């Protein structure tokens, strides 16, 4: 017997699940990438060269920009994976 006053929860739609999982796993990966990358690379070094964008030589700006850069790319990989896995034509 099911509890009458509390119907079982509906499952998430595949689209919603795909988006949520992609955003979350890519967030985790991007956080780790940011830590590793900036542990070995000091954005201040960009200030000593003429060529690269000097606005990136500010550490807080570079950390944030790096994080979102990584997140954008990991998100694209995760979203593509989610899409590929569920769009496979069934034979």
């Amino acid at each position: 017997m099911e509890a009458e006053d509390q119907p079982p929860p509906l499952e998430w739609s595949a689209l919603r699940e795909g988006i949520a999982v992609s955003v979350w796993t890519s967030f985790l990966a991007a956080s780790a990438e940011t830590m590793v990358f900036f542990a070995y690379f000091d954005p201040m070094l960009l200030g000593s060269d003429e060529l690269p964008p000097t606005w990136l030589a500010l550490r807080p700006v570079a950390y944030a920009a790096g994080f979102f850069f990584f997140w954008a790319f990991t998100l694209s990989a995760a979203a593509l994976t989610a899409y590929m896995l569920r769009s496979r034509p069934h034979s």
Partner: protein
Amino acid sequence: MTAPVAAADDSLYAAHQKLYPREVGGRFARLRILAVAGLLGVFYGLPWVRWDGRQAVLFDLPARKFYIFGLTFFPQDFYLLTWLLIIAALSLFFFTAVGGRLWCGYACPQTVWTEVFVWMERLTEGKWARRIKLDKGPWTAQKLLRKAAKQILWVSFAVFTGFSFVGFFVPVHELAAGVAALKLSSWEWYWILFYGFATYGNAGYLREQVCKYMCPYARFQSAMFDRNTLIISYDAQRGEPRGSRGRDAALRPPGLGDCIDCTLCVQACPTGIDIRKGLQYECIACAACIDACDEVMDKVGSPRGLVRYATQAEIDGKPTRIARPRILVYASLLCLLVVGFAFAVSHRMPLDVDVLRDRNALYRELNDGRIENVYSIRIINKDQQAHEFKLSASNLPNAVVDSDSPTQFVNAEEVKTVVARVRVPGGQEHGGRNFLISAQAVDEPRIRVTSRARFFAEP
């Protein structure tokens, strides 16, 4: 483990059934409240703790220095962080193998913050049945008032959470002064709101859906389980066949087991499962069903423990083995790593040296015939006190290291870049050769670090 079935409506905005877990009190609820209070106390309190005249725990990203009580860590110590993460992961494996999903039920931030948000919800919107009625009912002034009060509590708590989080990265006294004067950099505002919003969304709305759909640990934890792992179990042998009782609950109709099918365990479950169907991957081992069932068993006069923490072996009437190969392997690896970590931290060399070759010239011949190479040497003094460092070369015969002064003074926790010229007699070297550059504290010869470099001369 079955994959969640996609709902027929594939829209992002398809309504998701909101869960209204029934509140229960009991031993495990009290244990969780204790864990919540302890963990949140550490999270909100730690930024305010002082140590040696500065914030005890501060991850100063702009300065690239991490302060943890008496210790200061530099990016060069990154391997220690990796080490620590491995220890954390292995502890998770160990505790999962022994006690099941203890992490999920008592320590996961998702559980901890959800507990607080649910408490605020109960404070403003009332208990379980009342909340369901309120949500179903029309928008009255009272509903508006209750919902508004909840949002005010939630939002302010979430923003305070974001503030405390940023307080681990920006000195919290400065941050507080900045918030009070509305003078913070846009990045500080941004991260406070970002973390606050994540807390609000995860603990206020997503709740069990995070565990169900988004948590990787929930999917792989079963790999650490075996028949001797503590899980939340329903004792089917005792409970079945289940059946409701009449008005006098203590009167058991013949042939029925202990389960009176009151479904309180289902109503209390924050992930909406029925534990009587056996262990499911949605179960976060919060033990709310145990508390609910114990209360009922007390009322009908049956012994507690129809739903209880037990191993599969115990339920099957076999002895439970705690010391088994899996546990021993996890435990000994964990011990090894922890001891190694403690040793590495306590014996950490408070000095680092980076050697970079001068980019302009490979080598230079001096007037007296000697060959000179120029290097830029970064001396990173990680110690809490200043030192004089002497530079020297080895593995390169007759080499002389020359810089602006015979020793280099580097302040506590400072980084100094020194230009050093390394000279050897003419004709001695041909082509390239690897050698070593060392820095050694004059006052404390124990502090000595060697770095590899390459010397070039005429082919």
